[in-house]
């Protein structure tokens, strides 16, 4: 059962990260639509923020892998 629980955990982590990155992407699009001239800076900031969230999600995935590979 370890693997299944780990898979649920990984899924939850992915869910959270998906929501977070989705929000970042949406907000960045809004911002770019409002200020197209600042799109370069917004994109960079967006990627950094997404990477930070993704990092947290990947912790979850790694923990899932750990449980699964046992």
């Amino acid at each position, binding site marked *: *059962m*370890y*693997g*299944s629980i*780990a*898979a649920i955990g990984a899924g939850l982590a992915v869910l959270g990260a998906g929501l977070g990155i989705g929000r970042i992407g949406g907000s960045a699009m809004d911002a770019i639509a409002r200020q197209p001239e600042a799109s370069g800076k917004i994109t*960079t900031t967006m*990627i*950094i923020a997404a*990477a*930070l969230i*993704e*990092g947290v999600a*990947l*912790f979850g*995935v*790694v923990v899932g*892998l750990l449980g*699964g*590979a*046992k």
Partner: protein
Amino acid sequence: MILKNTIKSIFLSILTICSINSAFATEHKEKKEFNVNEMIMHHIKDAHEWHLWGPEHGGTSIFLPIILIDGGLQTFSSSNFYHGEMKTTIDHATKSEVEYLQGVGPAANYALYHEKIYKLNDGALSIEDGHVHGNTKPLDLSITKNVMSLFFGATILLLIMGSVARFYKKNGAVAPKGLAKFLEPIIILVRDDIAKENIGHLKYKKYVPYLLTIFFFIFFNNLLGMIPILPGGANLTGNLTITMFLAICTLVVTLASSNKNYWKHIFATPGVPVALLPIMIPIEIVGIFTKPFALMIRLFANMTAGHIIVLALISIIFINQSIAWGALSVPMALFISVLELLVAFLQAFLFAMLSALFIGAAVEEAHH
């Protein structure tokens, strides 16, 4: 082993969704069942051989040299393991049979279990709950698959960048041509968008060579990992040791270039009441290490996950024992592979970018 079931159940659900499973699913049960988990793990982990084709044991492989430090230097070919004896022993905890390879010839005193080399005690290996107990592990400095891939990656990087450097040496400061034309925008991207943007235009120059090296090292090895045949195929940047080393490099560079302002922000964060400092200082100190830790995990997990997904999609064919499933799995694997090309660039960019961000925070002067 349980992950296997999980993955199997995922694929089973895919089958039901596709609702054509009965048409393609075969009833044949092989004597040795195809183990997708084992196959994937075998591919993403390090090995002492470079498996080219054929079955896992007995197929065509390049046997890489093994270098052990065990009361002196010992070198021999890994064929002494892979062509050695397949032994079985009883796991003390789970009471199930486990297999390991016992070396022959110069490797007679050693055993290979899950690609790790152990010294035998009176010709035996004792395994408990999947882990080896009681057997010592000699220091293994073998040229493993990943080390070999590291050599390939470094050589390719040197050859390509060397030709670019030669172009500029020969022609001076002219408009680039050929390879230089292709790579110069990337070099300028690293210099301007990564270094200058995050470190600041006063101090970025010192860190550009380091950031370029780390960027191209990751980028080239990521791409090399996407090639399924010989020079590529190893999961080098999806190996925790490599990413850990790179993260430590960034940590060392960050700490080495840190100034007073950086430490002031850690031990006496401006704007934080003194009463809160006992809580803040440990958090800030942990923060120094979590940042490179996240770098390490990010690169490792991204690349490993990419390899796992591609392999799992290809495995659909072998799980169902039918080539017809290739019509589903090959386009999906192709799609993921193309996505992985983007990820290869993105992860290299992110690693360099976040490194620059950390260095930038360490060299930033107080401006308030």
